[in-house]
């Protein structure tokens, strides 16, 4: 399988009145064509900023270094004019809040046809027909009538569909979805996830799914990347992450998720403490103040990323012990069964 996105040593910094803040540090990952990558982390973990940097959408005080090779081009070094030939065409992004990312003054028809006229050189009529077909594809009823409406005339779920339709107009090779269903109700979320799943299967589209919901990741993604305090703490296949999590943060996150299935007699496991402030990160490993396994070394040194297989890595000083514990647990579970 060919690689569609190759990110190497990506760093994102912001100049703020309180000094420089590192939102993303030394990020490395690759995404294969037709695969989906889930990026998990809490607010402020830097998960969105990686992809804002790749899309060239950082705030004015932000700077990026490193490489993000997409179809042979390093997106981080492209001038805006060149970047615009890629953005919205072969690389699209959808955002969490569909209301603020659509222009409230323009009819949906205008916002959709604009993309096609600009990038594909289509005539107005042709562009409109294609827009209507795309709205139908994402499941908007009466698309022919609704294409002439303004964003406020749509419900939240419908607006998110319009956003997805716009992102898909030029049939991108890679879609970056930033919390696409967080603002939506579960029944609508199920509709949107089904839609994305079908697009991936039928159009062979690669997807990056940025979310804090591990349930969404479990159902949608092939690869998972877990972020904490601006760094990647663990990567692996979806099965490796859910069945054999090796970073204490990933383990804590999985245990603290309230689950609709499973046992409910006991208290939830709660990771103690608060998520870190990027402006005042703790010394050593960013997770050490909340980690039960933290040692002196963890408080002193930033752990490097230890690679096990091509896509499997963990950034933790205590990983060898954790692997042993995991194995013991598996054995115990098998004995109990």
């Amino acid at each position, binding site marked *: 399988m060919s690689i569609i996105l190759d990110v190497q040593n990506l760093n994102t910094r912001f100049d703020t009145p309180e000094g420089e803040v590192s939102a993303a540090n030394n990020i490395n990952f690759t995404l294969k064509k037709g695969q989906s990558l889930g990026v998990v982390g809490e607010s402020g973990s830097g998960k969105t900023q990686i992809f804002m940097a790749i899309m060239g959408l950082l705030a004015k005080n932000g700077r990026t270094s490193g490489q993000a090779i997409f179809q042979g081009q390093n997106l981080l070094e492209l001038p805006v004019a060149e970047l615009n030939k890629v953005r919205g065409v072969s690389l699209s992004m959808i955002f969490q809040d569909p209301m603020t990312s659509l222009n409230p003054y323009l009819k949906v028809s205008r916002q959709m046809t604009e993309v096609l006229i600009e990038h594909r050189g289509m005539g107005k009529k042709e562009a409109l027909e294609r827009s209507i077909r795309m709205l139908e594809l994402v499941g908007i009823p009466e698309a022919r009538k609704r294409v002439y409406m303004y964003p406020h005339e749509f419900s939240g779920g419908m607006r998110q569909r319009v956003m997805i339709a716009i992102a898909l107009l030029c049939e991108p090779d890679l879609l970056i979805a930033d919390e696409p269903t967080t603002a939506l109700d579960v029944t609508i979320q199920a509709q949107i996830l089904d839609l994305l799943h079908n697009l991936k299967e039928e159009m062979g589209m690669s997807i990056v799914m940025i979310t804090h919901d591990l349930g969404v990741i479990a159902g949608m993604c092939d690869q998972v990347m877990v972020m904490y305090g601006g760094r990647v703490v663990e990567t692996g296949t979806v099965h490796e992450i859910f069945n054999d999590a090796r970073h204490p943060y990933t383990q804590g996150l999985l245990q603290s*998720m309230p689950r*609709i299935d499973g046992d409910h007699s006991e208290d939830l496991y709660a990771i103690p403490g608060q998520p870190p402030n990027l402006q005042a990160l703790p010394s050593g490993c960013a997770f050490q103040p909340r980690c039960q396994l933290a040692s002196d070394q963890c408080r002193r040194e930033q752990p490097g990323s230890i690679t096990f297989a091509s896509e499997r890595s963990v950034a933790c000083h205590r990983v060898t012990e954790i692997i042993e514990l995991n194995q013991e647990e598996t054995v115990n579970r098998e004995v109990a069964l």
Partner: protein
Amino acid sequence: MSEPILKVDDLKVHFPVDVGTFFSKKATLKAVDGVSFELHEGEALSVVGESGCGKSTLGRAVLQLLHNTEGQVVWMGENITGYPVKAMRPLRSEMQIIFQDPLASLDPRMTIGEIIAEPLVTHNPEIPKDQVKARVREMMDIVGLLPRMINRYPHEFSGGQCQRIGIARAMILRPKVIVCDEPVSALDVSIQAQIINLLGELQETFGLSLLFISHDLSIVRHISHRVMVIYLGNVMELAEKDALYNAPRHPYTQALISAVPVPDPDKEAHKKRIVLKGDLPSPINPPSGCVFRTRCLYADHQCEQEKPPLTTLNEPTAKGNHQVACHKQAEINSLD
């Protein structure tokens, strides 16, 4: 079972609204349309539903922060429906509320000590200052805030800590019931667990009753004894937690539960998800008959004509008091 501390009977909250831009017509938005339930001492009853289903309005009407159009709210045997502000005030010390946005619900110009003390000082102005302070510190300790932070301002705290402040303020009068309106949906996953555990502990320690309003079915499963599912202001199903999650009877509950993603890739891959068509209809112009029928897979002529009443199941296998509002209930559930 003991007498319920709160009894809500056929509660309706309707808002007059203007429809149309220039030639406005008067219309009625039926936010809550005939909800009945009982809340017992020490019980956690959850209200789940999608946005716009009327769950928050229901919470406010129960506390008489909003006056209901029809129906009754009976508090400890006293009918408090339509009580004016003054008559409600003494009762407020027994019923409190926690809001969704933890920072927005705290006055930015008051220290957290003042915020937490405010209900106490309002209801018991005779308590001397040092005693107030002692009780605030005690309460801060109970909810997991360091008492030495008493003189800080809300903006110095994170979301999870602000929610603890909100809980401390609600708890300081030792109320009998707290309405929790989406108390954890604005918080990070690792912090959600902390707050849910805290609410659970407080409930057990103080014998508190909770009316827990949420859209998140996974969280609800953790915190509640009984669960009420509402859709467009109507109760679809009301049952003991395990009965509702293990054997949901209403097609809407079934769809809701199947739509929740489970953090387990193997289960997700093999799960049969019921995907409902379309969106929530407008509560200004709800469907005739059963309000859910426009999105229901089983709806027929009868559902269009008659509104199904909330009926208690009388099967030997039914656990506790399991109520469902669906004409097709028996038919649907005998299929599989």
